[in-house]
């Protein structure tokens, strides 16, 4: 397992990563989630051995300080693939196998196996420069997985792709990581991606890890308001817990396990939908999405987002109800 203790990276006066501790257990997929510039990629590069840092990076108790990049056995997938332009697809995938002297026949077998796994069977002799972005990323993944790394590091693996492709590839990637039983650390700024891929999520901000936990816990209980906003909650309001129920101005919903007393409640856009709740407001704007319409509603006190199946015309007054699945409780 990976054990990172007190890692700190400074560039001159700027501290990019400060005193980070993080563990990744065998077979576990951990996502490092944070806005760009929070130091998450730097941390990844420290773990890979590409960056100088203070602190300790250990694998199974062994300090990796003296172990150079190429002996760490950690695979790395870059945001934009970084495929070797002078080698074909098979040559890219087989690269790591060649480095450790795997026999040619076995290389070929493994290349076929991996290309099938990433959905690119038969692509062996294609030029990498002729592949689409998604295909390139799949090859990059196959290349990193081929030598069976003890830890796979993924640096924003999907963010260079368009949205539809990203969602599909995220699901594929999650399946692949599970199937291969890979231990992985994924860096991403996209919480959907993180929650799709990871067994555990670590939220980073300004060089520090501010929250760590299972995706559903982080989703449900962001550590503070800023984290909640980063996780997509547009509105934070005061509420109250009482006997397993959460009482807010938008209505009361079941919230098992909630402590009695005052609570800070964060609402995602999907938390409000047309219904028969206590609050009503005027629709001021609408945004058509693939399977729903997102409207902005002026309730007099707030401008809130809500999700509707059909689009009420601008200017109409609608009544809103609270969807408990999209409500997060800020732990203070």
């Amino acid at each position: 397992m990976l054990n990172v203790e007190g890692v700190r990276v400074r560039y001159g006066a700027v501290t990019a990563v400060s005193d980070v501790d993080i563990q990744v257990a065998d077979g576990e997929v951990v996502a490092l989630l944070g806005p760009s510039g929070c130091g998450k990629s730097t941390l990844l590069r420290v773990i890979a051995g590409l960056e100088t840092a203070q602190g300790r990076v250990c694998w199974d108790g062994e300090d990796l300080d003296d172990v150079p990049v190429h002996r760490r056995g950690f695979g790395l997938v870059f945001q934009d693939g970084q495929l070797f332009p002078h080698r074909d697809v098979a040559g890219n995938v087989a690269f790591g196998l060649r480095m450790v002297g795997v026999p040619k026949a076995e290389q070929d077998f493994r290349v076929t196996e991996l290309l099938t796994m990433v959905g690119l069977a038969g692509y062996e002799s294609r030029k990498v420069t002729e592949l689409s972005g998604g295909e390139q990323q799949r090859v990059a993944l196959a290349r990193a997985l081929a030598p069976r790394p003890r830890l796979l590091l993924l640096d924003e693996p999907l963010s260079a792709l368009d949205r539809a492709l990203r969602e599909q590839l995220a699901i594929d990637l999650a399946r692949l990581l599970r199937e291969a039983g890979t231990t992985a650390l994924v860096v991403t700024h996209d919480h959907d991606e993180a929650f799709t891929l990871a067994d555990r999520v670590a939220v980073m901000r300004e060089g520090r890890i501010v929250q760590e936990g299972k995706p559903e816990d982080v989703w449900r209980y962001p550590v503070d308001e800023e984290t909640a906003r980063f996780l997509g909650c547009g509105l934070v309001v005061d509420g109250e817990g009482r006997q397993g129920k959460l009482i807010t101005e938008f209505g009361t919903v079941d919230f098992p396990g909630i402590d009695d007393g005052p609570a800070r409640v964060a609402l995602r856009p999907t938390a409000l939908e047309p219904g028969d709740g206590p609050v009503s407001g005027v629709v001021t704007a609408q945004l058509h999405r693939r399977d729903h319409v997102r409207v902005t509603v002026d309730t007099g006190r707030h401008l809130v987002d809500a999700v509707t199946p059909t689009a009420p015309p601008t200017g109409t007054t609608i009544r809103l109800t609270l969807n408990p699945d999209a409500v997060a409780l800020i732990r203070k």
Partner: protein
Amino acid sequence: MARGRPGLIAPVAAAVLPLGFLAVFFLWPVAAIIRLGLGPGVGAVLGRAETWGILGFTLGQAAAATVVAVLAGLPVAFLLARTSLRGNGFVRTVVMVPFVLPTVVVGLAFRSLLPAGGPVAIVLANAFFNVAVVARTVSGLWSHVDRRAEDAARSLGASRWRAFTSVTLPMLRPAIGSSAAVVFLFCATSFGVVLLLGGGEYATLETEIYLRTVEMLDLPGAAALSLLQVGAVVAVLVIGAVTRRRATSLRLRGRAETARRPVGGEWGVVAAAWVVVVALLVPIGSLVARSFSGGLAGYRAMTGTGYRGSLQVTGWEAIDNSLRAATDATLLALVLGVLASVAVVSLGRARIRPSVVETVDTAMMLPLGVSAVTVGFGYLVTLDALPGDLRTSPVLVPLAQALVVTPLVIRMLLPVLRAIDNRLRQAAATLGAAPWRVWREIDVPLAARALLGATAFGYVVALGEFGATSFLARPDTATLPVVIGRLVARPGELNNQMAYAACTLLMLVTAAIVIIVDRLRVSSVGEF
């Protein structure tokens, strides 16, 4: 802890050999000869208005020739890098030919084309020699530049010209800057051309240093001018280094992908490139025509030693000598140039201060800009201190040629090595490639095209090198350019015919080498 920091030992070790070579065979001799001349005489020479006039003319004609060479070289670079047209192989070969021609012969050719001589003729002749530097260096990078950035700019409404100036040109700047610096140095130190076409009225630092050192032994005067020359060269190199510093990282592409049939206005550029090629062919053609002025007599004479034995070797032996010396010089220059490039790139990656890296880089360029006479006379007063007294040894021929070829190798390799995305190397490292293996698997194949280009280029430069070689070669190891120079300096019609025949053969040998290397690159580098 210093985890993951790229080691400094390897790059420093790689830098030792080229820097050591530079120190022993360049810096030490030059410093020694300048020191011999230091004294009040230096100030007197520097105080004269005439001296500054010479400096002005030197820089002015070099700058003008550089501009002409860049303007002429860019369309050719476009043709070679961006199009897949018939005749490109011919163009690639033709632009290289001027490089091997001895200056005395080219000077005579330009004299017959532009009888008045003067600054215009000097500038054109200097540019004539150097179009290849620009075309080769720039096309080397251009053929790897991703076409899509340009397409993106076009789609944003930029005209083709605008897309070129705002997107492509900045990407090419490192190569243009590099080649312009080299051309400038070549032109600033051009000797034979200035002497022949300047008709004595126009002097450059180079010709003046020659006169003062060789003919008058006016060491204080020569020292003053040499100091001026070194100062000017360093200034130019620093400006060049600063331009390169601002270079952006490029996304390298395979060649096949970037070359296509020209469309629309691109045909205009192709036409311009061919105009340049035709312009280069005019002096070349006049030399070939002269070689046939006596029928085949000049060629038949190649088996002999000239009119009544003007030479100590036959023409064919001279070709053999040329090839041998150039092979040695190129091998040596490749070793030194590759080591220096690796050192410079590694130091850059190890986050060493850019100024240190640039100093190493700039130092290796110096030999291009300092008078061969200064270096040659410097050898006389220093190299006897080395074992074996190398001062008059023929080994000095490839050594001196390597001094000139090495900076060219570096200039052609560095832009490409620097343009390789560091993350490609990191990807290789995480896949288990040790540092040397990363070089072998990533840098070498990606830079192989540039390296082969540099090899051909270096070989051709060594083949055509005249100044130092004529100074150092023994009669029985005379190279073809030296033999040509000798033949032209003797009366007799046969000698003249043989000289021009030898020129033609030298051009053919050059063309053959360029063609062979171009072939090699196809088979060894595969699709890239």
